[in-house]
Each structure stands twice: as C-alpha cells, then as structure tokens.
C-alpha cells in the first residue's frame, strides 16, 4: 500500500511537469495550429542559462526568473523571425521547421555549454516525510514542483479568461480573420502566445532539472511525453493537456515500478494509440473526425 502511494505520488509529480509542457504545446497549437517540437529544446537552453548563472554564484531564486524571461524572449523571437514565415503554408512545413529547431538548439547547447551531464541544484529538500508509520516519498522538491506548476498554470489561465490581452489572444486563436476585422493585431498575439509558452516551458524545464541531472538531450523524453499527453487530451483543450499529463505521469510511474522501466515508452505509445482509436481527436476534443 505504501509503495502504491509512493508510486502514485511520483507519477503525480511527473504528471505535473508533463501537464505543464502539454499546456505549452496546446497554447501554441491553439494560436498557430503548429506543434512546437522545439519546446523542450528551448526549455533546455534556458535551463542551461540558469545553470551557468547559478554556477557563477547567482542565487537560484534570481536565476529562475531570469531564465523565465529568457524563455519569454526566445519563444517570441522564434515565432516572429522563423515561424511567421511558415504559418500560412502547408502544415508539414511548420512541423519540419520546429523539428529542425529541436535538433539545432540541442546541438547548440552541446557546443556553447557542455555535452556532459551536470547536476542541477534543487531548491528544497530531497527527502520524503513520514505520517505515522508510512514514509511518503513526496519530497520538498516534489511539492515545490507541483505548487509552482499549479500556480503558473492558474496565472496563465487567469490571463486568458480575465484580461483584455487574453481575450484578444483567444480571438486571434479561434478566428484570425475575424480577429483582424476587430482591430486585433493578430501577429502580435501570436508572438505573445509563443512567448508565454516559452516562459512557462522555461519554468517547467528548470523544475524538472532540480535535483537531477541535465544534458543537452535531457528534455527529449519530457517533450515526447508532453506531446503524447497533449494529443491524448485533445490538442485544442487545456483541460485535456492537464489530464493527459497526469495520466501519462501516472502511467509512467506504474509501468516503471511494477513492470519494467524500458517498457515505459511503449506503454505510452499503446495508451496513445488506444485513445486515438476510440476518440481520434483526443479525450477532450470537440471536433469529430471527418468520415467520407
């Protein structure tokens, strides 16, 4: 029972990170209909920036906000300079561009920083706590992760629901032409969307690094799982992203602990295919697959 609880907690913590990234992917997908495969690489880049700063003596609590700002700028730049030119064409072009960025940014990290694994500091304790006789393997770091993701996600959602900027962004995402006719500068909204995703991703990248190791490709697994989570939940749905993330995190944890760590990815694939067979658009998708 205790093991089950702990495995579940691990899954939940993992799920929070996947959910965060899935949210980034959905955010970008809703705005520009593009899957940003480079999201993980961007986050890795900003994490390495943070690492360099911390290495040179800067406090963790200063490095993190700076990295988030860097993520914001990087995301916005990428949209404005690169993605803007492929937004109008065939879908496949944009997919390939983000894949190219994924490969390029990871390689750049290896060249600018280091190819080797480095330990990344954790801001809180790495020990669990006890309730009575049971040891709960939910470390201080884990709790920080979950809280940080939750707070950031809530802030993001509040931005969308309650502010004018958020309304403009939603309008631009749902109907570009109509939004233009309402005087909304759609281009700016798209850039903002990517910038916000970049910032959120930067936060998530640092959170997952804390207490573990980073290497240029450390975000690969996360991005792939986040993507699966987003697809699982339905690429249009924020709720779906969160649910998908948590489901995947739990799946990973259970498969890792009860079956074998090497089968985690295949389990994720099986889960994904299973869901898509039943609901081709994902769990929370509004649209129905077109049948001729």
């Amino acid at each position, binding site marked *: 029972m205790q093991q089950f609880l702990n495995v579940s907690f691990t899954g939940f913590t993992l799920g929070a990170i996947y959910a965060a990234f899935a949210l980034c992917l959905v955010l970008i997908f809703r705005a520009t209909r593009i*899957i940003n495969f480079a999201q993980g690489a961007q986050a890795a880049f900003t994490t390495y920036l943070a690492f360099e700063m911390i290495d040179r003596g800067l406090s963790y609590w200063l490095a993190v906000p700076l990295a988030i700002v860097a993520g914001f700028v990087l995301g916005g730049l990428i949209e404005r300079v690169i993605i803007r030119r492929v937004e109008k064409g065939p879908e496949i072009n944009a997919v390939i561009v983000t894949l190219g960025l994924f490969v390029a940014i*990871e390689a750049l990290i290896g*060249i600018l920083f280091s190819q*080797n694994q480095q330990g990344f500091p954790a801001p809180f304790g790495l020990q669990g706590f006890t309730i009575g006789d049971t040891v709960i393997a939910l470390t201080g770091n884990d709790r920080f992760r979950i809280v940080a993701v939750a707070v950031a996600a809530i802030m993001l959602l509040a931005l969308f629901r309650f502010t004018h900027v958020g309304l403009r962004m939603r309008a631009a995402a749902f109907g570009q032409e109509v939004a233009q006719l309402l005087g909304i500068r759609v281009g700016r909204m798209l850039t903002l969307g990517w910038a916000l995703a970049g910032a959120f991703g930067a936060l998530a990248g640092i959170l997952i690094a804390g207490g573990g190791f980073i290497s240029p490709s450390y975000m690969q697994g996360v991005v*792939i799982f986040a993507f699966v989570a987003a697809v699982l939940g339905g690429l249009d749905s924020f709720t779906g992203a969160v649910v998908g993330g948590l489901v995947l995190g739990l799946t990973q944890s259970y498969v890792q602990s009860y079956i074998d760590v*090497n089968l985690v990815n295949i389990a994720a694939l099986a889960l994904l295919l299973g869901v898509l067979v039943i609901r081709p658009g994902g769990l929370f998708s509004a649209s129905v697959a077109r049948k001729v």
Partner: protein
Amino acid sequence: MSLDSHDATADGSGELLPGGSRRVAGASSGGGLRQSNGLKHLLLVVLAWIGIILLVKLLETDYPFRVTQLATMAYYLPAIAGLTVLTGINGQISLGHGALMAVGAYTTSVLLDRQELPFIVVVLLSVLTASLVGLLVGIAAARLHGPYLAGATLALAVGVPGIAIYYRELFGGDQGLRVSPPSSPAWFESLTGDLGRGYITVLGWALALSVLFFLSNLVNSRYGRQWRAVRDDEVAASLLGINLGRSRVLAFVVSAGCAGVGGTLLAVVTRLTAPLSFTIVLSLFLLTAIVLGGLGSLLGAVLGAALLTFLPTFLSNQALSAGLDNSQAANLAPLVFGLVLVAVMLVAPRGLVGTTRTAYYTRKAHKRQAAQAKHAGRA
C-alpha cells in the same frame, strides 16, 4: 511524369496529323513512354551498380574510409527513399522510421547470430518483419493526420529501443549484438577480384539500388497515382473509389520494408546493432534528408543520403581544425542539419531537387511560349 503540353492545341499550333488531330511538340503517347521509362531506370540502376564496383575497386586500397562511407550511404538510401515516398507522395509524416530500421537491423542481427541462413534469406526475413511492424503501425496511423500521426510515430521511435533493452537475452540489451557480415562468395570474387571489405559496400548498393528501382516502378504505377490522389484530396480520392485506409497502409508497409532493408545493411555495415544507434535523432536525420532532397523525389533521396553520409564527417573535421573539441565537433553536424532544415523550409520548401526541377520546367515553358508567340506573330 513531368509537365505535359496540352496547352498549345488551343491556339492551333503544332503539327497537323492525318485524321485532324494535332501532335504537339513534346507530347508523347502514354503507354510507350511508361515502358521505356521502366527500361531506362533498369539500365540506370545496373550501370550505377557497375559504377559502384569500379569505384570500390579504385578506392579500396588507398581510401578504405571512403569505401566505408559509400557503404553508409547504401544503408541510408533505402530508408530515405521509402520515407520520401511515404511523406512526399502519400502525404503521411513519420518520425519513427528510425525505429523501423531498428526492426530490420535487429532481425538481421538475431538471424545471423543464430542460424546459418543464406544472406538473401536473412534480408527477406528482415524486410518481412519490418513490413509487418509497418503494417501494424500503418493500420493505427491510417486514421491519424498531421500532428497526431507525428506524435504516434514519435512515440514509436522512442519506444522500440526500449523493447530491445527489455528483452536483453535476445537483443543484447544496452550493449547490443555484434554482427558478422557475410563474406563474398567465390563466384563473385572471380568476376571482380578480391574487394576485401568493399564487398559489403557493393552488396549494400545492390540492395539499395534494387529498392530504388522497385520504388520508381511503384511510384509510376497505379499505386503511386492512388497515393498522390489520397494525399492531395481525400474526399475526391474516395469518391473515385480508392480505399483510403488500404492505400495509406500500403504506403506505410512499403516504406517500412524499405527501412527494413536499410536497417539490415546498417547492421551489416557497422557490425553492431545497439539501441544507441536508433535514437530519435536518426529519425530526424532521415526527415532532414528527404526534405533537403525534395519530398517525393527518388533522385532527391540519393542526394539526401549523400548529404547524411558525407556532411557530418566533413563538418566535424572543419570543427576540429577550427579548434573545437571533440564533443563540440560532433554537435556541428546536427546543428547544421537543423539550421539547414529550417532554412530550406523558409526559402525552398521543395528541396534541392524540387526547386531545381521547377525552375528548369518553368524556364522551358517560358521559352516555348516565347517561341510560339513569335511564330504566331509571323504567321
């Protein structure tokens, strides 16, 4: 095959044939052209193979590394060719073809390790296994589009190596399996002389060129046309009676089989089959190759294979001489590939072959129009 010239008949130009119909310069009679194309390709393939043999003989004493590079190109080529057909002609994006190569490679490794089968049988069985996996994936994928398909194939790419590690007795776990490549038979050696390790290069190219030939016929056949129709307009295609699912699955199976050939050759050329050879980066490199060469172009696939083979070593040499350390130099190739991928999509989305071809035909058409205008002006 290319732009045809129905346009000129409207203004009455062109030769007047008995019976009142007009034959326009450049037009052809359908069936005859197709047959001569197939023959032309066969000749091309055979000549290319002979060329490879000669090249290997030339290089094998003084430049053995180049011979190995040629072998590398031979194992990339079938996978790239299959993928370019799948994505360029049938419109299905796959980020998991590295995994399909792995299937072929592992099948080959296991069979060569345990049985005494003739190599050709090993190849066929590897292709069969890869095709079967392709069938499963294809069936699942047939209902998925765009990002969903990308996601599923991505999950495949990262999932397959894990299976190899899980079944470690069979597949050698993290260390992988060592592969002893087939040695050249006596009858072959009597024709070409002793090629040493060049035999694998020649053998690899024989298989790679066979795959190219097979694909070129398929692409120009009814199946190729169906694939294009499905890619361009699903609704129209199914109204024409094409079974969308079957067409897509077929494309996947074919491309998987080709990737299987690639995997077989990879095992035999590198003499090692390990999970680390099949990371997501492999699948992305395959994608880079088809984009650079031009989606759907077999000629482009050859170009892409060449780039994938020769560019990384060239780049890391440049990097080392520029003072970067080993690991930085190793990263230069992915950096360049990634950036080039982005640049190509922004500037020349049709890839190198596609853009050149379009430019060539556009100029030709303009010249023809100018000539006709002149002719009409004079008449």
